[in-house]
């Protein structure tokens, strides 16, 4: 069943078209990778899906319902959760409270006691159990990312949007996180959309399907290995350099 559907979604910032007539479908329980160079509109797309920005054109559907105009706090309980490219912890709250807040106001809609228990569970899962009482703003950038992952999972989403979650992690952490997300995805039937700038390797391990973004447009979409070996995609990643070299020569 189609969980998320974008129809001709467009977002402009002044003269810049950050997202340009993008169509996208994500099925229940599917793992999708969104790949694209810096500035290709990936984060903006997430902001439209989560309701941070309203699109200038196009529509967003979740489980068949039009949520284009819904404010973020009304979408989240439907089963959306995301992490931020630059982590946004609730700094003065403890790590546990951060995750519990996700459980309280996400789809899980837990009461305070349940939320605290869930926070312990998910923090244990991401391997942060010994940090539960720490003030969130004191975490390292990597820990903040893991905490955001725990917060998003504690919301019990149907659709999880990961924004450069693995950027800046070492290979060990990346493998650990991929295994973890894969496991939870299957166990709780979560559709996971993960966007990355580089880290092609990580995407091949994880995504069943890949969408490549370029200058706000959807360049190509299909099974992971097929797409990543496509000449057009190789050009997007290497082409720029060749063009510049060409001009120089």
């Amino acid at each position: 069943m189609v969980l998320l559907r974008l129809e001709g979604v467009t977002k402009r910032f002044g003269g810049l078209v950050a997202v340009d007539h993008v169509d996208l479908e994500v099925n229940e329980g599917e793992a999708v990778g969104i790949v694209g160079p810096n500035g290709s509109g990936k984060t903006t797309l997430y902001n439209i899906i989560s309701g941070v920005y309203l699109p200038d054109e196009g529509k967003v559907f979740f489980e068949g319902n039009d949520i284009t105009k819904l404010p973020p706090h009304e979408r989240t309980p439907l089963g959306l959760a995301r992490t931020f490219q630059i982590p946004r912890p609730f700094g003065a709250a403890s790590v546990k409270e951060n995750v519990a807040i996700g459980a309280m106001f996400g789809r899980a809609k837990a009461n305070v006691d349940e939320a605290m228990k869930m926070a312990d569970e998910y923090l244990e899962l991401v391997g942060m159990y010994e940090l539960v009482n720490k003030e969130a703003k004191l975490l390292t950038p990597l820990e903040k990312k893991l905490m955001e992952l725990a917060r998003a999972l504690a919301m019990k989403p149907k659709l999880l949007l990961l924004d450069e979650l693995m950027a800046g992690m070492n290979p060990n952490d990346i493998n650990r996180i991929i295994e973890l997300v894969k496991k939870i995805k299957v166990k709780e039937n979560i559709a996971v959309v993960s966007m990355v700038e580089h880290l092609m390797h990580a995407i091949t391990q994880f995504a069943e399907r890949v969408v490549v973004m370029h200058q706000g447009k959807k360049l190509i979409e299909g099974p992971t290995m097929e797409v990543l070996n496509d000449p057009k995609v190789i050009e997007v990643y290497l082409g720029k350099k060749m063009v510049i070299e060409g001009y120089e020569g």
Partner: protein
Amino acid sequence: MRRYKPLLPVFAIYVILLIIGATTPGLWQPIMFIMFYIGIGVALNNFLGLTGYVDFGYVAFLAMGAYGMAVALNYFTELGFGAVALGFFLALLFSALLCIAVGGVALRLRGAYFAIATIGVNEGLRYLIEGARIWGGSEGIVLSGKLRKAFGPDFANYLSTFVADVCLIIVIFVASVITIYLINSRVGYALLALREDEDAAKVVGINVTKYKLIAFFTSAAIGSLIGASAWTLKLTYVFPEDVFFIHYTVEAIVIVMLGGAGTLLGPVISGLIYGALKYYLSVILPGFQLLAFAPLLIIIVVAFPDGIVGYVRKKLRGKSLFEYIR
């Protein structure tokens, strides 16, 4: 019950203060003066402390409470204790109406814009009452003669001394329970999140306007009950230039920030310190607080951005005492 542990030190402070006041000749009035400052600290903390939003018009809620009580005692004097009850009801009603007028619009704004929007509320309301001659205009409402005539001097005196003080004390106890209840509930966690990062809070599923309004109404309601008891009932008059005096707003803000915004013990301790200093120093150095505010605020912001209790809480994280300090 575990979550209500933080009430223990707070109630201990209240009880000790009241026992000292009741048993030491000449100390009851200073203690009630201190209780007033603890009260406005606790009241404003439910908004400023829990949301991080600064309301420069806060004293207007105390004024609404003061007028609510004055209107009831002035026009429904014959109801006796019923008039006092009606007075508290009107206090809540008037402050709630002001909440709707201010909060419905201004709380959709972000922090700094909200603060600016509230600056005019207090003065505007005062000039409205004076200019349109509402509730006696600038002459205010003077109740002492009426109360004495209706009830006789003994009962009138009993109202303005004993009943007024008891009401204030009850309001402060109840307000403290409400603060801890809020902090420990979903409301408290929603406010904690939006205080830290409003946009992230929305994305996590929090209806930020709703929770800001809850804090605003709670804080306004408590403020209005304090205005009704500590001003109208106790002083038996209401003058607009007194009840809309912006000074009280600034004092309440200092108390909340100094003690530790968002904690309960914070405003209690700093209300105690501030009230005591003001009571004794104003005799020796009238107007000292004006001189003291600026350096005090700078010291707080630079050295103790989390306030006294916020600082102590940080040191106690993970220790067993932590649960009692809130």
